[in-house]
C-alpha cells in the first residue's frame, strides 16, 4: 500500500508541481488522469522513486522512500515496485524469458524461471518465451512488460500510459490483465493515463 504527504516537485523556479495527498491500498486500483503538463508522469516517477521530491514524503509499506540512499532505493524499487511504461523497453539482445529473469536477478540474484514461465502463460505468451522482444507485436511487448513488472511480486504496480499505443482490443486485454493480476498478487495499482478506455474500466480516479 502507498500514501503520499504534501508532495512538491520543483523543476525550476517557474515550473513546480504540488500534488494533493493520495493513498492506494493493496489490491486496489487508482487512475490518475489530467491534461498534459499537469505533472502526471512527474508524479509517477516520484512514486516509483525515479525522482526525488523537493519536499514531502512517500510511504510504501510504511517505508519513506524519499529518505533512502540511492543504492538502497534502487534495491527497494526492484523489490517493491513494478513499472510498466508507455513503450515497452527490453534488453534487445536477450530473449523474452531472459528479460523477465533479469528483472528478478537484478533484485535478489535469483532467476525465477518457473515463476517467469507461469507469468508468461498467464499472459498468453508461453509460446514467445524464447523469442527476442523485437519479434513480438506491440501488444505482446506490453504484456511482457507486465510480466516483468510482476516477477518480484511488488507491493506497488505503476503504469505510465500502458495502453496509449495499443488498439482497442489489446488495450482491453492489457487493462484486464493489470486489474486481475494486481489483485491476484495483492499489489496496489496506480495508472497514469488520459486513455478514455481505461476510465471506463477503473472506478477510482484522481484528476490532477
Amino acid at each position, binding site marked *: 500500500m502507498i500514501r503520499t504527504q504534501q508532495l512538491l516537485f520543483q523543476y525550476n523556479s517557474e515550473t513546480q508541481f504540488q500534488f494533493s495527498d493520495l493513498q492506494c491500498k493493496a489490491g486496489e486500483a487508482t487512475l490518475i488522469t489530467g491534461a498534459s503538463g499537469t505533472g502526471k*508522469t*512527474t508524479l509517477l*516517477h516520484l512514486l*516509483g522513486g*525515479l*525522482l526525488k521530491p523537493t519536499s514531502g514524503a512517500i510511504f510504501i509499506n510504511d517505508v519513506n522512500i524519499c529518505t533512502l540512499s*540511492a*543504492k538502497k532505493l*534502487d*534495491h527497494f*524499487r*526492484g*523489490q517493491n515496485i513494478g*513499472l510498466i*511504461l*508507455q*513503450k515497452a*523497453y*527490453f*534488453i*534487445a*539482445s*536477450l530473449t523474452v524469458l*531472459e528479460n523477465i529473469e*533479469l*528483472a528478478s*536477478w*537484478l*533484485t535478489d540474484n535469483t*532467476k525465477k524461471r518457473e515463476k517467469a514461465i507461469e507469468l508468461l502463460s498467464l499472459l498468453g505468451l508461453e509460446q514467445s518465451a524464447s523469442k527476442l522482444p523485437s519479434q513480438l507485436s506491440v501488444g505482446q511487448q506490453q504484456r511482457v512488460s507486465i510480466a*516483468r513488472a510482476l516477477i*518480484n511480486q511488488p507491493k506497488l504496480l505503476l503504469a*505510465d500510459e500502458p495502453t496509449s499505443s495499443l488498439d482497442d482490443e489489446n488495450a482491453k486485454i492489457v487493462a484486464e490483465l493489470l486489474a486481475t493480476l494486481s489483485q491476484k498478487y495483492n499489489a496496489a495499482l496506480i495508472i497514469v493515463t488520459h486513455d478514455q478506455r481505461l476510465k471506463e474500466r477503473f472506478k477510482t480516479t484522481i484528476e490532477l
Partner: protein
Amino acid sequence: MIAKIAWKNSWFKPLNTVLSIILLTASVAIISLLILLQKQFEKQFSSNIDGVDLVIGAKGSPMQLILSSVYQMDAPTGNINYKEAQVWMKHPFVKTAIPLAFGDNYRGFRIVGTTEEYLKKYEANLVSGTMFTKNFEVVLGSEVARKMNFKVGDKFFGSHGDAEEGEVHDEYAYIVKGIASPTGKVIDNLILSNIESVWAMHHHEEDATAAAEHQHEEGDDHNHEEAHDHESDHEITAVLVKLKNKMGFILWPRLIAQNTKMQAASPAIEINRLFSLFGIGLEALQYLAYGIMLISGISIFIALYNTLKERKYEFALMRVSGASRSQLLILVLFESILLCVIGFILGTIVGRLGLYLISTSTEENYKMAFNPFEFAGKEEGILFLTTIFVGLIAAVIPAVKAYRLNISKTLANA
C-alpha cells in the same frame, strides 16, 4: 548474469564486435610474435657464443665471419693458413682454440672438420658410438641423425661446398662413428669429422697423386717433415678461441689485422651489432602493433559510444528493475574487457601460429627453430595488462555515461 548480458550484447551487433576483435587479435598477435621471436632469437644466438671470446678467420666482414663460423649461417670469409693460425692457437693467452675447416655438406648439413674440443664446448656427449679417430669418420649432431635417420655404421657421400646440389665427392664415403646428444645449439645440425678428412677430400681433388691419401694410408710412420710440409699449405676456415688472459680480447683484433692476412672478431660485439640492427626493425614493428591496438581501442570506444543512445533505454529499464548505477558501470566495462580478453587469447594463438610458420622456414633455411609453445611470462603478462587497460580506457566514458544516466528524464522523453 552481467557476463551473460555482456556476451549476448556483444554478439547482437556482430560486425562491431568482430571488427574490434580482429584489430585486437592482429595487434596482440604481432606483439606476442615479436616478443617470442626476439627472446628465443637472442637466447639461441647468445647460447652459441658461450666459451668463444674471439674468432680468427680470413679478412672480410667480421659479422660474416661470426655468422659463418659460430652460427653456420653465412658463407665463410675465406680460408686461412693453418700454420699461420697455429701461431696464435699456441699463444700463452689462449685457453682453448678449436680449429674449424668447412668442406662439404650432406643434404644441406655442413660437414665440419674440427677437434673433440668442439663437442666439449657445446657440452654435447655421445649418445651412441665413439668419437671420430680416423679420416672420414664422423659424429652426427642429434638433429642430423634424427632427420636423416642415420645409425652408427651408416655410410654417405658428401657434396662439395655449401650447396646441396654441389658436386658429389664419391671417392670417399663418410662413415658414421657416433651420434651426439641434443644441445639446442648449432652443433645439432652439423656433421663433425677431423680436420684431416676435409684436407684429404680436397687434396685428392686438387692433385691426382693424392697427398692426403698418402698421408692417411701410411698412417703413423709417415715422415714428420713431410707432414710438416703438408701442414704448411693446409688451410682451415676459422679458429674459435677462448682466452685465458682477457688482454688478448683488446689487443688481438688490432694485432692480428695489422700483422697477418687474418682477422680476429669478437662474437659478443658482432652479435650486439646484429641485435641493435634487428632491434630497430623489431621496434618499428612493435610500434605498429601498438598503433593497431590503439585503433582497436578507438573502435571499441566508438562502438560502445554509438550504441549508448539506443541502449540508454535499456539502461534506464535495468535501473527501474532494480539495477544499481555501479552494476551498469560494470556491465559496460565488462563488455569492453570481454572483447579484449577474447582478442588477447586469439592474438596469442595467432601469434604462435605465425611463429610456427616462421620456424619451419628458418629451420629449412638456417637450421634454426623456434618453439611456439614457450610462454614469455613477464612480457606477455605486460601485454595482457596493456590489452585490458586499453579496454578499460575505451569503455570508461561510455561506462560513466551509463552510470550517470538520468532515468526519469530518459523515460519521460521517450
